[in-house]
């Protein structure tokens, strides 16, 4: 286990020679041993092209590379932290929610429109994801930040999950999502329930939901 949750807001990461970690810049709280922190100009993995891709997609968060041998404590802004272990599948998450992740994971950017065309783009606007989102693929662990505590909801083919777009944090697995609307005449006259949009996730996987409707 690379990441160990010390408490709800702090994770401890073990760094070993030859292994790399990526973390959000300035999120280190303390470290033991010989560990170096190098700012990562390209904002993650890959060459200059993936860097340009991230800049264009507005998914470029300031990252740093953590190398050496020792233990590092991460935490940021008093946000709650959730460690997600990936076993070969893909995690979809906003780049600014990433606290730290292992270098073994493959980082990419995804166009929301590629999942459901125009509705995908609308969905990105409603969830605050924008037109693009970050993907992490492979085997490894990710520490994700959220406002308020996080719960994991499993998604099975028989049981799709509906999530408030503002409380959505991340999801992984083979999941299709669509935006379901429940707009009625009440919303038109300003007497809506405030829950007109929901994110419907179906398939096989899990979705992470935060106990708050506040963005990071």
């Amino acid at each position, binding site marked *: 286990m690379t990441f160990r949750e010390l408490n709800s807001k702090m994770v401890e990461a073990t760094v070993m020679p030859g292994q790399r970690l990526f973390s959000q810049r300035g999120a280190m*709280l303390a470290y*033991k041993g010989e560990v170096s922190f190098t700012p990562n100009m390209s904002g993650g993995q890959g060459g200059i092209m993936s860097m340009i891709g991230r800049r264009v997609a507005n998914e470029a968060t300031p990252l740093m590379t953590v190398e050496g041998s020792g233990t590092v404590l991460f935490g940021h802004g008093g946000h709650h932290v959730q460690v997600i272990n990936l076993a070969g599948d893909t995690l979809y998450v906003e780049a600014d929610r990433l606290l730290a992740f292992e270098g073994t994971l493959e980082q990419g950017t995804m166009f929301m429109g590629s999942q459901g065309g125009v509705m995908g783009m609308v969905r990105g606007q409603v969830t605050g994801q924008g037109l693009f989102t970050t993907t992490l693929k492979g085997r490894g662990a990710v520490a994700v930040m959220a406002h308020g505590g996080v719960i994991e909801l499993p998604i099975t083919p028989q049981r799709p999950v509906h999530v408030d777009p503002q409380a959505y944090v991340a999801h992984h697995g083979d999941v299709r999502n669509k935006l379901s609307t429940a707009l009625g005449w009440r919303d038109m006259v300003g007497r809506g329930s405030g829950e007109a949009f929901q994110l419907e996730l179906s398939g096989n996987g899990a979705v992470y939901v935060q106990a708050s409707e506040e963005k990071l």
Partner: protein
Amino acid sequence: MSQYAGAGPTVHDPTTLPSDDNVNNYTFCVELKGSQWFLQKGKMIAYYGSIDFNGIGHGRLDRLVRTSFHSPLHASDWVVAEGSGKMLLADRAFDVNSYDLEDGNLTIRSGNLLAFQPTLALKQSIVPGFLTLIGTGKFVAASNGPVVFMEPPIRVDPQALVGWADCPSPCHHYDHGYMTGLMGGLRAMTGLGGASGEEHQFEFVGAGTVLLQSSETLMAEQATGAVPQQAGVPGSGVPSTGPSQQAGVPRLPGQLGDLQRRFGL
């Protein structure tokens, strides 16, 4: 009547409130039995019983201040709670915890300390913005997220540091390799590559315990009072006598810009 089924709020009365313990993560209950506690102003949220709150430095309490409050310079920020009853302490929904000191010493960021027993002596640390508690007794401190205890040797982000106990005062650690050399110079001149935000830490060595909070958000700093205007006192603004270096601007070998500008100080 007071029996609630399910997950309703817990209702406390004077008998069910804990004595000198946490009510929940964010509230601490102190029981007074004719005893006294020092409180930072404005941290008491409620109390049962008859408790007097007196500003420090008013005749009757002069002796108390002399024995356990050695920083008369910021005494006006503190009050003495006296009487019998139970009082609740909290600070802006930060996590609150009590700590016991047994013939020890602990240095803590001034804004994080809420209250302490008069058996402890409060002194200004020579590290600006920190206070030192010496002796035996209980004190209550707030932190942003639960406090994590670590043992030296360790390097700590300045914002994540809450305090330290029993170990020597920290020193500054700069990531030398990052700031110097060709790449460091290029970064300094062009601003390209950015700062990792982690070139500067506090380094702790020796035996003791370091207290960390789980976030880089600081609590509002509480003034610790000015230090005597005297040569040799850190932060006093009085230059030391004798041949001094050029004031204020430390330089590293092979470095191009000012260290201070680099860190945005």
